[in-house]
Structures are given as C-alpha cells and as structure tokens.
C-alpha cells in the first residue's frame, strides 16, 4: 500500500470539493431552489435578531434619559431642601441634581396647565418641593436603579422617590420575550435547514447508488464515499448562508430610510445597526455547519444501507 501522503490527501479534498461544486452547477435550477430555501430559512431569524438588537440599543438610549423624582415632605423648608440637593450631588452615582421648591412647582404647573385661576382659589399650595435627580450614565441596569431608589427613599425628608420607568421595564421584558422567540424560531428553522439538506443529500445518494456500490467493491472506505456528499452539504450551507446575508442586507436597506426619518422626527441619536460584518461571518458559518451536519446525518443513515451484494 502506498504511504500516506498529505499533499495527495489535500489535493484529493480540493478536487472533491470542486467536483461537488461542479455537480451543483450542472443542475442550476434544483441547486438554486435548495440554496434559496436554506438562505431564507437562515435570513428570517437573522433579520429578527438585527431588529431585536436595534430595539435593545434604542431602549438603552432611553434608559440613559432616566430621571428620579424625589417628592419632599410638606414640612421640609426650602432651605433644607436646597441643602439635601447639594448633599446628593456629591453621591457618586448621581450626575445632576435640580431642586425645585413648592412655589416653583406651582408656577410650573400654572404655566403648563393653564388652570391659574383655580389654583389661586386654593387656600394653600398643594404641591410639594421636588428634587429631580439624573443618575450617572453607568447606572443603567435595573438593579442599580432600584438600589439608588431605595437609598433615596430612606432619606428622612423624602416623602416619595419615584422612577417613572415602568413602561421601560415592560419594554425590556418584551425585548427578552422577543429574544427567546427568536431563539426558538432560529432553532426550528435550523432544523428545517438540516432536513432540507438531508433530503437533498438523500436524493443525491440514491442517484449515485451504483457508483457507491462500485466504490465499495474496489476498496473505497466509508470516508471516501462520504466525502463528496459532505462537500455538497458544505456548498449548500455556505451558499445558503451568503444568500441569507444578502437577504438581510436588502431587507435592511429597504427599511433603513423610513427608520432614519422616524428617528429624526424624535430627534433621536438612533441609527440603524446593520451588523453586516458580524452576520457576514456568522451566517455562512452557520449555514456551513448545518450543511455539513445535515449531509453527515443523511449519509450516515443511507450509506450503510448501500452495500454491494
């Protein structure tokens, strides 16, 4: 037997890889359909992932704009309120503090509500003094917020410390739900990619039944028989991944115009994250992995059934 030769081995692999690509090329329509099915199946979760990632960025931006309102007790004098505000501004997790006396609060309310006369008829000012706190940007996680809120609420002069961000938490939970949903969808569609490739390979194996028998008769190992089919799966997966990447990019291109306009209307700094670099690596890799795995499963299942007799 000839000595094992690495150069020969690699050359064979390259030849088989090219030959299986050639086989796909010779049946352009059938191959195209398979590649498109794989591409779309991969594009769907990838597109949703990009969308979800953007929503996360967006909610992050809003979170940074979070403010905490400290409503002081009625009996706290304005001077004391000012003092507390100054003390608070030295806390490391607080970025900015604004004191607003009850008189100022009333003035603001009068201006905004247009209920001036009604307010004049009240015997006394019903509005409390407020300290408006802007946490430092790093305090964005919910836990850190809750902690700061708790410490503020414990202050003696404070009646109520309020973080008006329940809707943000809901959004975050919604986002998490979306994340899970995308993961489930991705798993299901990956399975369908496996099945599509498996079925395609199964047909290819049946088409080459005679060849497989002859190869086994003249001493071909299972690895030798398996190799062209694995490369077929490899190409299907790789090309499907590239198609998926293009599909996502085109979809983003279509929606990017309106999204940017929308962001401009909200005077937001938001711009669409394309993630094109990450996906360009991830999608073909994913497709390639699924392709080879699907082919491997199909070959393993059908190869042993084909023995010379």
């Amino acid at each position: 037997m000839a000595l094992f030769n690495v150069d020969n081995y690699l050359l064979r692999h390259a030849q088989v890889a090219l030959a299986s690509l050639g086989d796909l090329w010779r049946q352009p329509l059938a191959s195209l359909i398979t590649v498109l099915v794989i591409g779309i199946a991969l594009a769907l979760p990838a597109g949703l992932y990009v969308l979800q990632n953007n929503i996360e960025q967006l909610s992050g931006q809003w979170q940074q704009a979070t403010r905490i309102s400290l409503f002081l007790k009625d009996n706290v004098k304005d001077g004391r309120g000012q003092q507390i505000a100054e003390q608070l501004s030295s806390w490391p997790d607080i970025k900015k503090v604004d004191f607003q006396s009850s008189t100022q609060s009333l003035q603001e309310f009068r201006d905004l509500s247009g209920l001036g006369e009604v307010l004049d008829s009240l015997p006394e000012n019903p509005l409390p003094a407020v300290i408006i706190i802007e946490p430092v940007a790093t305090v964005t996680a919910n836990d850190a917020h809750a902690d700061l809120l708790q410490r503020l609420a414990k202050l003696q002069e404070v009646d109520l410390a309020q973080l008006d961000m329940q809707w943000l938490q809901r959004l975050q939970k919604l986002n998490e739900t979306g994340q899970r949903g995308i993961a489930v969808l991705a798993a299901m569609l990956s399975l369908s990619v496996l099945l599509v490739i498996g079925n395609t390979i199964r047909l290819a194996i049946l088409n080459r039944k005679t060849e497989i028998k002859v190869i086994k008769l003249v001493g071909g190992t299972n690895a030798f028989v398996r190799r062209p089919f694995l490369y077929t799966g490899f190409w299907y997966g790789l090309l499907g991944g590239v198609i998926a990447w293009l599909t996502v990019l085109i979809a983003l291109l279509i929606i990017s115009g309106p999204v940017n306009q929308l962001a401009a209307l909200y005077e937001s700094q938001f711009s669409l994250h394309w993630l094109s670099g990450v996906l360009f690596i991830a999608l073909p890799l994913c497709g390639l992995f699924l392709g080879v795995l699907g082919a491997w499963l199909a070959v393993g299942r059908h190869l042993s059934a084909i023995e010379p007799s």
Partner: protein
Amino acid sequence: MIQFNEVYKRYAGQQEALSGLSFHLEKGEMAFLTGHSGAGKSTLLKLIALIERSTHGQVVVNNQNLGRLPKWKVPYYRRKIGLVFQDHNLLHDRTVFDNVALPLIIAGENHREIGRRVRAALDKVGLLGKERSQPIALSGGEQQRVGIARAVVNRPPVLLADEPTGNLDPLLSEEIMGLFEQFNQVGVTVFVASHDQELIGRLPYRRITLKNGRLATD
C-alpha cells in the same frame, strides 16, 4: 493463498448456500469454479471478497483469517482482491480512463502514478487507444476488458471473476480467458467462476465443482 475450512453459509430464512466446504488454492494457482446455477459459485466468491461473511467455518486469504477482520478494515482488504463481474459494473458517467483509475484514486495514489498505471493496465488488455471513450460506446467484450483493467490496476495478488464471459461469444470469451492466463503467468492467483463447460474443458487448469453448495469434484 485461499483456504476454506468447513465453511457454511446460510442466508436468513433460506437453505444453506454452502455447506461444509473445504479446499485450498495455492499462491499463483489458476483455477475454475464451476457448477449448475444456484450451486453456490457466486456465494463462494462473495465470501472471498468479503461481500458476505461465512456463517460457520474459516476462510483464510493471504494468511488473513477473514472471520477476524473488523468491518473497518474490509475496504483495505478489498484493495488486494481484483474483482471482475459478469455485468462489468462500470460507471457510465465517466471515461474509460477514470473507470480504471478509480481503485488508485481510492488508494490515494498521486496523479502521475495513476496516469502511468492506468495506461499500463489498459495496454495489457489492448485498450490503450480507448482511454478517453465512454464505456457505453464500447462493445461488450471491450467493456469487460475495461473491467479487467480496473481489477488489476493496483496489482492485486488475487483476481476473482464471476462469470466474466457470461455475455460474450466464444471467440471473445477465449480472448478474455487468455488475459486471465497472462495475469496468472506473472504470479497472480486467479479464480474464475464459470458454467461454460466447453470453454473450461479446453483449458488445462484445476476445476472445483460445486453441487447444491457442496464440493462435488476437485
């Protein structure tokens, strides 16, 4: 070279195809395997090529006890056995050259060596000019010779043929047998199953005859 010791072969739910078969073929010997159809000729060859395994008894080929050969080693074992079939088993989607080259490609030979040996094998069977042809364009006798070239291209010490002249007229059959004799003369152990008594009768080689799976005459 090929030794059978009390070999039995039974297919599931059927009668014994071979029962209590014992014989020994020397290295470099040429022999015919004959008998009525269904006598077990093909089964016997399949046991040697490890396409089937014996139910009972020992088959030893080239000092290798086939019963002890693990499944993953079977392909490597088959590379040392040249197989010729009645229906040639050629692949019709590739040229004569590529058909003959298949065992060498499988064995991982390098490009130049493959070209050299394929041409040498085709030259031996007299088809050197046809290497670029498609098998389908060849006559039955030529196709069989391509099959033989493929069987001997990696120089196996054993050559098995199952009814190699079954589809050929007497003249072509004789040519094919002449080829087998040539390989035998350079030391290859040749074992040919055939029911063509007339052809075999004219050749001076050992004859192993099977009857209902048993050794009738040797």
